[in-house]
């Protein structure tokens, strides 16, 4: 269990995925419930414990066990900081971290699969992959779902599909999402128009940590809005097409800026690089913005000495949960900002010498 809270970088992030200049990661999650238990918001402690037992037994006895060595991570055994770190690594949701203690996550060794138990729904099956791999990610999630469904009595009805705690998830229970880095679109002021036109297609964008979170460092999460009335494949296809569009627009915007405003862009990128190399204190917002500039520089081939994987690692390393977990204690903003600047300097200089 310790390994999930020791390393900032999940194994699945070590290899750069397809189109990684724009798409950081692809994710699919399926919401499922058991027919004969109240949903987690109404469940008693005994119900919740029984659900956890049934799900881990199912994961243990099905053919899943052969392929995925799941580790059960009970929320009751984690400190606040450890939970925070798992949220920052996208292994659990903020809801699971904050919610009742009779909850758990089953996580595989590469950290690409997390089955959350007693989140808003009894099960949230989540698969994640680097870069643009929505179809592969859906196939992986579907396989796990098929294997679990041989063991578990899912709440399902012919008309409304998989029944979920919230009506926004009913039907397929699927949320297909990509995490994208959009500095070009933001710099050329195209984000609002894109948001509007995607919304008409049922595609929504929000900040990096999903529901209600702010967008830091030009990183957005894009996902399907509805879950009912379309098949899983149709929704995967919808997000695939939207992502392809977004990649085209983002690359075009970057090339446009590189042609029209080359020197100001270089100045911005290298200033940020310099700041990260030398700053002694840096807050979360500035770190996110500077890292976005450096990421853009790396993806444009202007900062070849910085390996891409460092940037993904720094996304987690600069988060308050990770910083405090490494220190093993709660820290105030002053200390966090010192520590953040120090870790960024260490990571970057390592590759310059």
């Amino acid at each position, binding site marked *: 269990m310790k390994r999930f809270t020791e390393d900032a970088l999940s194994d699945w992030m070590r290899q750069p995925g397809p189109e990684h200049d724009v798409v950081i990661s692809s994710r699919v999650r399926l919401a499922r419930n*058991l*027919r*004969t*238990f*109240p*949903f987690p*918001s*109404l469940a008693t402690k005994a119900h919740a414990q*029984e659900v956890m037992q*049934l799900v881990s*037994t*199912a994961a243990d006895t099905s*053919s899943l066990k052969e*392929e995925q060595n799941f580790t059960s991570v009970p929320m009751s055994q984690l400190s606040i900081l450890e939970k*925070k770190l798992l*949220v920052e690594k996208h292994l659990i949701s*903020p809801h699971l*971290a*904050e919610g009742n203690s009779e909850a758990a996550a089953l996580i595989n060794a590469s950290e690409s699969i997390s089955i959350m138990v007693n989140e*808003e729904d009894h099960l949230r099956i989540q698969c994640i992959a680097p870069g643009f791999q929505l179809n592969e990610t859906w196939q992986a999630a*579907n396989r796990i779902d*098929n*294997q679990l469904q*041989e*063991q578990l*009595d899912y*709440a*399902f*009805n*012919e*008309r*409304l*599909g998989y*029944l*979920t705690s*919230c*009506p*926004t998830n*009913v*039907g*397929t229970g699927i949320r297909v999402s990509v995490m994208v880095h959009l500095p070009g679109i933001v710099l050329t002021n195209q984000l609002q128009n894109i*948001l509007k036109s995607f*919304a*008409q297609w049922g595609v*929504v964008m*929000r*900040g990096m940590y999903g*529901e*209600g*979170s*702010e967008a830091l460092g030009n990183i957005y999460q894009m996902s399907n*809005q*509805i*879950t*009912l*009335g*379309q098949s*899983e494949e*149709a929704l995967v296809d919808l997000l695939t097409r939207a992502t392809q569009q977004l990649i085209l627009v983002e690359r075009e915007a970057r090339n446009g800026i590189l042609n029209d405003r080359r020197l100001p862009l270089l100045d911005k990128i290298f200033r940020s690089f310099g700041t990260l190399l030398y700053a002694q204190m840096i807050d979360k917002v500035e770190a996110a913005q500077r890292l976005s500039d450096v990421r853009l520089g790396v993806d444009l081939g202007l900062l070849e000495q910085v390996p891409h994987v460092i940037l993904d690692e720094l996304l987690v390393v600069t988060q*308050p949960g990770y910083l405090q977990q490494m220190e093993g204690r709660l820290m105030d903003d002053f200390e966090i900002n010192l520590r953040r600047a120090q870790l960024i300097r260490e990571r970057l200089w390592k590759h310059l010498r």
Partner: protein
Amino acid sequence: MICQNCSKNQSNYHFTKIINGNKTEYHLCEACAREKGDIVQGPGNSFSIHNLLSGMLNIEFGANVSKVRAAETRCGTCGLSFNQFKKQGRFGCADCYEAFGTQLDPVIRRVQQNNTLHAGKSPYPRTTENDAKPSLASQLAALEEELQAEIRNERYERAAVLRDRINNLRQQLAGDGQGFSGSSSANVTSKQWPHFHAEEGE
């Protein structure tokens, strides 16, 4: 930036609310944000979608639907009332969907962009008498395809499970023709749900 609400303090909380593409931004100081109840402790959380959703449900039902009727509808299994559902935006159990019946239709339509019918995967074949046979057969075909894929990938343990399911289905197909009876022997049948009721809210 100065807080939009009290116009006095520095705003530390910046919210962006997007509903169907309409974006609204809020800049509030901590005191005002707390007062509005919009801060949920935790990483990156601000407006809860459930607050928004329950707000929408109340606007919709407050004016049009007879409150008395709505208030009396209660799920027989978990005891959640329709009003409680509206308030929290969450169901209490799977049976709530049946219990609230047609009152739910506008809610589902609203959050699912007018869709009312599931079009995705299913954990078991359709059970109505008319299409029991074709869907059993198509289920069989899908399973066989899956089996071949597992064998190709040398995942034999899973292949063995699939083979058993295929044999079961074949027997049913050859058997009484009544269709799939629901749960297979592989299912973990959980204990009878102990009687319980939702806590009555304010």
